[in-house]
């Protein structure tokens, strides 16, 4: 396996989850983990009442790191211990949001951190059977996790009567097979049940009520579960001091695209601005290039244009809320700040585009991704995602017609908010935001007049081919 040379953390980073990533001499085995203080938090957790653990997580303000940013403690709070049905925990390690590449490193380099986080979580939630749903394209990662689980069992951290607590827990690794939709928690559950990963309707299938095998189920992201370990280590209140109110803790930014040093950076939430992330953490843009656009939270997040200005509410020194106008580079990298500018922190994946990039091409790349990954269960996403891809395909091939930008935008509008799962938003937000914010690039490429309706019948090929100028109106 070829790995990029390891790099020491940037001074602006605060490494907690990634403390051992790229660390010289650190190996993924249990001895290395224990040597570096591993499983101490588990030893602490088992002396606590399970409800106390849940309360610490609630107090920490931890928000899910998978994409939606839902408060973890609230999610856990839906589980009633001692109900008639068993509760399951599933670790969502199906990392597949384009632009995101953090779980990969935890799994490959520090698997026991995840296992420990899971054991603590299972102990808190009275879970005796847990699964790690890892994406199929991490075969090595699956092996590493399986080995880590075996090691933990051998050392008594896992399995029957773990650490003499009388508590039994089995964790199994379950490999996906290349479907992005398995990152959606109900799709993941269906997949784990051995079915096509068709997300379930909510209501009634909220996982905390009717999840895996119709039992209460908690699905948490890899990074989220790792945070649980650290919350137990320092206490929820202490953890909540990291970052900003309602945006607590650290988060791993995954920055890729047109920057000098792309990579991952663990920072306190809200501690760096988007501009600092690009210019300081990543060493800025390539020489001679100007910033054009940023997708700030995984490919589904709405794109930001470099020259956009936003009016936001911010806290003044005296504590009152004041209006402030900011630019893209001033946006704080946290959940609320990115939501305030109409995008999202999502999965932490930041894709940077400089002025060499064609926005139609960029959107087409994403449209191809979403058209490929739509599960096809519900109508708007199934038909709309491929339609959007076909339109941008045709525009790129030279067959753009003048109403394409409007149709694109409207197709996206007809998907968002009307589907079973959030994939509907995920696939339409790029189109909505690209067409809105880079409309001139789309209109420049989509200039042919709309062909008349039948007859004669026009195909995309006739549009793409060197066509004679078609009549300007389509009405007979």
């Amino acid at each position, binding site marked *: 396996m*070829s790995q990029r040379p390891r790099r020491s953390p940037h001074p602006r980073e605060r490494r907690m989850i990634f403390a051992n990533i790229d660390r010289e001499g650190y190996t993924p085995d249990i001895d290395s983990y224990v040597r570096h203080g591993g499983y101490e938090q588990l030893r602490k957790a088992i002396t606590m009442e399970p409800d106390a653990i849940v309360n610490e997580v609630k107090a920490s303000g931890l928000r899910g790191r998978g994409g939606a940013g839902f408060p973890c403690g609230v999610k856990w709070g839906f589980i009633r211990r001692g109900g008639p049905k068993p509760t399951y925990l599933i670790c969502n390690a199906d990392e597949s949001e384009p632009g995101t590449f953090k779980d990969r490193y935890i799994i490959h380099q520090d698997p026991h951190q995840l296992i420990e986080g899971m054991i603590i979580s299972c102990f808190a939630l009275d879970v005796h059977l847990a699964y790690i749903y890892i994406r*199929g394209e991490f*075969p090595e990662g699956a092996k590493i996790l399986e080995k880590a689980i075996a090691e933990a069992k051998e050392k008594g951290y896992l399995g029957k009567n773990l650490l003499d607590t009388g508590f039994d827990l089995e964790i199994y690794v379950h490999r996906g097979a290349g479907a*992005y939709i398995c990152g959606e928690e109900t799709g993941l559950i269906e997949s784990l049940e*051995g079915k096509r990963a068709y997300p379930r309707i909510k209501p009634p299938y909220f996982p905390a009520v009717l999840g895996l095998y119709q039992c209460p189920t908690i699905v948490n992201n890899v990074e989220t579960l790792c945070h649980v370990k650290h919350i137990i280590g320092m206490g929820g209140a202490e953890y909540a001091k990291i970052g900003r109110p309602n945006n607590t803790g650290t988060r791993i930014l*995954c920055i890729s*695209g047109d920057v000098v040093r792309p990579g991952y950076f663990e920072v306190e939430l809200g501690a760096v601005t988007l501009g600092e992330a690009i210019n300081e953490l990543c060493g800025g843009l390539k020489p001679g290039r100007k910033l054009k656009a940023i*997708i700030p939270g995984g490919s589904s997040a709405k794109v930001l244009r470099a020259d956009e200005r936003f009016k936001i509410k911010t806290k003044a020194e005296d504590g009152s809320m004041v209006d402030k106008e900011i630019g893209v580079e001033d946006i704080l990298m946290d959940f609320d700040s990115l939501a305030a500018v109409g995008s999202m922190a999502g999965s932490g994946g930041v894709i940077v585009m400089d002025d060499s990039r064609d926005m139609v091409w960029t959107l087409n790349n994403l449209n191809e991704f979403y058209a490929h990954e739509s599960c096809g269960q519900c109508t708007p996403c199934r038909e709309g995602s491929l339609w959007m891809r076909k339109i941008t395909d045709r525009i790129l091939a030279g067959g753009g017609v003048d109403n394409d930008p409007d149709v694109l935008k409207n197709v996206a509008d007809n998907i968002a908010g009307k589907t079973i799962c959030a994939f509907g938003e995920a696939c339409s937000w790029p189109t909505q935001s690209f067409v809105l914010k880079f409309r001139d690039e789309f209109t420049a490429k989509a200039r042919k007049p709309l062909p008349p309706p039948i007859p004669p019948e026009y195909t995309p090929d006739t549009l793409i081919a060197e066509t004679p100028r078609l009549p300007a109106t389509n009405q007979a």
Partner: protein
Amino acid sequence: MQIPPELLAKVDEAISHYPVSKRSAALPLLHLFQEHFGYIAQESILWIAEKLELQPIHILELVTFYPMFRQKMAGKYHIRVCRTLSCAMAGSYELREKICKATGIDPHAGGHHDPIAVSPDGRYSIEFVECIASCGSAPVCMINDDFYEGVTEASITDLLARYQ
């Protein structure tokens, strides 16, 4: 169909991971069969369905839904090149072209339902796949289960030389 004992042992082990529902073992079994036979044959679908007490359609539904499963042989070395945005920006389309050229694979072969193109000698096959979660070191690819990042048009030649 003839299932070698070592595969059977793995199958039974995998099923034991799902005490609530055998059906959950469908994906793990498909992985095991693909690893063993190189692809998912019709008789594998029937065998797995019977083993899990399912209808064959339940397995066929999975094989055609999850892109990692294939119903025909790939090359001895199956190369997955990431197609999605960050890798594409870093040159993955060009990388794919380069690999096709170097291995003799027809870059226009395949299609939506048959995304895997195989070289004439059967040694290599290529598949353009969606994001494999290493955007910070784009472009990336996998050769069988091995992962490679920051693959340049120059380095791919050396890389391929390791897979003969």
